[in-house]
């Protein structure tokens, strides 16, 4: 028995019962969501503290590993599960119209996200992923504007398309191996999936799961959605949800697909993502879409990092992802009041100096100015890229560096506007206290990271090492299979 499943089950239960509770007491309905998430976060933290170097595997329903569905908790997965839970808690969506539904959706998102991060079964991942997608449709549409509906629909088209492809990819994998359990797949993959079919399955799944990870070219929904969704939802999607999709791709890459071509596909798509995202952001005239495009670029960097073979790539991608996890939500929170034309931002620093200062800090970290954490993350990506000594990798470095200078340019154009002394016609609204406090908390995390750089890097390194330890994975999930029939 393991309490870990409660991280998933409790939020779902609460979501189911929320409307019934609301009938009894609307106050209870309001507080129960955050309370449940607090509880799950506590569970997650307690598991984290006892985890150490030994990952844990839990079987849903107690069935044997290849037959039942596995829940695999290593630091890697648990980190993102916790990020999901705590992130949702921090970015608890506020809807003017229908708080009850938003709360249910938030609970569902937290539960699903945790499950996605911890799941050890391919089809289970697919189902979790679909659920998360549906929940995010709801979150986006909960703003209630016609634009949010239209962008949700367009998102749905791309997402549905991708999901079907991912399903086809799963079918190909099952056809080749006859199993869906990641541990068992990891065992048989070198033999059975190291061929064209395996590669096709990877590309299909990459495209499918890449939709949420803002992978080029299935990221066309990003600018529309982030511009129409409420800023907290954008923060959740860009900050946390995209990282979970990335986590799936990382898991697949580590455990199942070892083709060198797979890495090249990631590299090419990553480069395209960085180039298109950052270039498009350069010309964006409203903050939301600028952040959206920049987030595409950042995710592209993570894909480039993933294309580095071995532990270094996972470490780098993890570092960039964790950095982005802190940074993008804070930026979107600031954009809550500053959305709209950048030109309108003239002098906004006067009304909200803290927010403006925070924006500067976040921008500096985003473009990678030492000693802020963004710099170290970027360093981690570029250093191994150059040692690979291949033209395409060199080109990737060039793209990353060029993109950073573009980033500096457009972000500081915004900063300049913030500090511009010319008055604007419309007075600026100050940020909501909760938004600002959350953003400051996240920004504070970045600063704290500067001072804890060394332990932080060590910790991330050990997480990455644990994540890439395939044999431990197999042994933890199915200890007996190592002795028996390894085909």
């Amino acid at each position: 028995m393991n309490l870990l499943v409660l991280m998933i089950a409790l939020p779902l239960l609460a979501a189911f019962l929320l409307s019934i509770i609301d009938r009894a007491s609307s106050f209870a309905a309001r507080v129960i969501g955050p309370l449940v998430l607090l509880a799950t976060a506590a569970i997650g933290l307690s598991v984290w503290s006892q985890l150490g170097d030994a990952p844990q595997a839990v079987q849903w329903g107690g069935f044997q590993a290849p037959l039942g569905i596995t829940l695999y908790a290593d630091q890697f997965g648990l980190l993102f599960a916790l990020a999901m839970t705590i992130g949702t808690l921090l970015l608890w969506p506020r809807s003017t119209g229908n708080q009850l539904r938003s709360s249910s959706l938030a609970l569902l998102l937290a539960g699903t996200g945790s499950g996605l991060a911890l799941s050890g079964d391919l089809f289970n991942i697919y189902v979790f992923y679909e659920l998360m997608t549906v929940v995010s449709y709801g979150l986006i549409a909960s703003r209630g504007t016609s634009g949010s509906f239209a962008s949700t629909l367009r998102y749905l088209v791309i997402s549905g398309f991708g999901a079907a492809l991912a399903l086809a990819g799963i079918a190909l994998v099952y056809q080749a191996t006859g199993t869906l359990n990641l541990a068992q797949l990891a065992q048989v993959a070198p033999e059975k999936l190291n061929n064209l079919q395996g590669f096709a399955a990877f590309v299909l799944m990459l495209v499918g799961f890449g939709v949420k990870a803002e992978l080029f070219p299935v990221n066309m929904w990003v600018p529309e959605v982030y511009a129409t969704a409420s800023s907290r939802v954008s923060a959740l999607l860009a900050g946390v949800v995209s990282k979970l999709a990335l986590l799936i791709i990382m898991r697949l890459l580590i455990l199942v697909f070892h083709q060198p071509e797979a890495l090249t596909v990631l590299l090419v798509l990553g480069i395209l993502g960085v180039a298109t995202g950052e270039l498009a952001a350069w010309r964006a005239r409203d903050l939301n879409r600028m952040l959206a495009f920049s987030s595409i670029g950042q995710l592209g960097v993570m894909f480039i990092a993933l294309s580095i073979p071995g532990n270094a790539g996972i470490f780098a991608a993890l570092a960039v992802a964790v950095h982005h996890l802190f940074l993008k939500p804070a930026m979107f929170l600031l954009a809550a009041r500053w959305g709209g034309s950048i030109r309108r931002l003239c002098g906004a620093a006067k009304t909200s100096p803290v927010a403006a200062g925070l924006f500067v800090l976040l921008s500096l970290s985003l473009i990678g100015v030492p000693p802020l954490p963004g710099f170290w993350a970027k360093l981690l990506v570029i250093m191994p890229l150059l040692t690979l000594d291949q033209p395409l990798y060199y080109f990737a470095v060039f793209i990353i560096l060029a993109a950073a200078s573009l980033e500096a340019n457009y972000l500081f154009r915004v900063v300049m506007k913030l500090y511009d002394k010319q008055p604007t016609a419309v007075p600026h609204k100050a940020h909501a206290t909760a938004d600002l406090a959350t953003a400051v908390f996240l920004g504070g995390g970045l600063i704290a990271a500067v001072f804890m750089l060394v332990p932080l890097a060590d910790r991330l390194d050990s997480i990455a090492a644990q994540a890439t330890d395939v044999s431990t994975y197999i042994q933890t999930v199915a200890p007996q299979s190592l002795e028996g029939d390894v085909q």
Partner: protein
Amino acid sequence: MRRFTAALFLIGLGVMIAAIYQHMDFSNTALNAGQAINSVAAQETGAANFVTSVVLAYRGIDTLLELTILFTAAMIGGMVLGKRRVDAPRDPDAGFILRTGADLLFPLLLVVGLYIILHGHLTPGGGFQGGVILASAFFLPLLARPGSSINQDVISIVEGLAGATFILIGLLAMSEGYEFLSPLFDKGELGALISAGSLPVLYLAVGIKVGSELAGLLAHLAEAEAVD
């Protein structure tokens, strides 16, 4: 031009798929989770229908999630479509035959649906299939009488409770010291109606949940104001 390029892409894709197909290996049956399940499911779950074993036991969490997806979709559908305006124009009532037919079919569908649900662990069928029939039972009158409506409040309570039941059964297993969603109760005799432990109960929850979700969703869609 656009269609031409699209067609070109499609042809290219087709060729690729064919190429992959050429490389596909159809002879790997040795390491097959399905075969393993076939050989142990009868003992482990006590259900005669192995698909049900897989759906409710081995991959029970998938089923829970898919119920959640339906729940979420229905909720979002309701949110998106919103309440009908009182003065919005309505379709005219259906004719006598349809109305009477719907009334006649209602109990029939109800019974069939429940039967399919309750025999899910023995014969083909189960919570999903039965749930859909249940939903149609409740939805048919709506088509016949556009003015009437399903009580969404009741539906939301039913769906919430049904979903909660599923999870609570899972939690019950935990309180007994098993893993979440482990099969409970006595497995009974293979092939008997009351067998397979908690699986029929789960399937009932699934059926009710599917039925209420779908009915709610369809009702929302039907209620949506017609355009033009």
